[in-house]
């Protein structure tokens, strides 16, 4: 990402895929749901509102930085876990 090259669609979709996967790794229901909601909102805004390539790249890098944070934090959340909430289905092993 050294030069301002146009971002390709697969690049953005891959970032989205990684963000969603990471959000789903949070063991806390509320954090998981929040970051999924945030991903959906942010990427839709990204798609609909960002016009210039500079803005697109800035936003892309911002989300990438946040993804790095979420990757660390989702691991921490797996180390300190709590009971599931009353709205959370307990997954039974297949």
């Amino acid at each position: 990402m050294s030069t301002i090259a146009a971002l390709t669609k697969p690049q953005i979709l891959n970032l989205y895929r990684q963000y969603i996967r990471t959000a789903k790794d949070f063991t806390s229901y509320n954090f998981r749901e929040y970051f999924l909601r945030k991903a959906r909102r942010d990427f839709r805004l990204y798609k609909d509102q960002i016009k210039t390539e500079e803005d697109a790249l800035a936003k892309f890098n911002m989300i990438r930085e946040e993804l790095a944070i979420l990757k660390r934090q989702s691991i921490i959340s797996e180390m300190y876990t709590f009971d599931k909430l009353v709205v959370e289905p307990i997954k039974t092993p297949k």
Partner: protein
Amino acid sequence: MFRTVLKQSAIIAKQQQKSLLFKTATTGINTGALRFYSAASTLSKDDITKRVIDVVKSFDKATAAKENITAQTTFHKDLGLDSLDTVELLVAVEEEFDIEIPDKVADELKSVGETINYISSNPEAN
């Protein structure tokens, strides 16, 4: 990363339980590596089809008639999903089968049938 390692070893353990044949055949050999080169998934195609369709049905953004989902159903034209929705649906499929679909493959999957075919070819799916 630490987690993925754990996850993979869990998957291997599961596979060993499932198939006695492999367990005896692979004692002392790296099971994971062996399985990569072996043929298709241990799951039956019917089972995969049913489970993929269930995931699609429970995906709340799929707008089209959910009763008529078949292998021919396409994500964009039939279900009204855009590219972001499709990514999300495929992540839900990944979760169901405990796999990670590589980016390049995922970008090409456009229909329920293609997804089923990919999973049938993935030995890690379970």
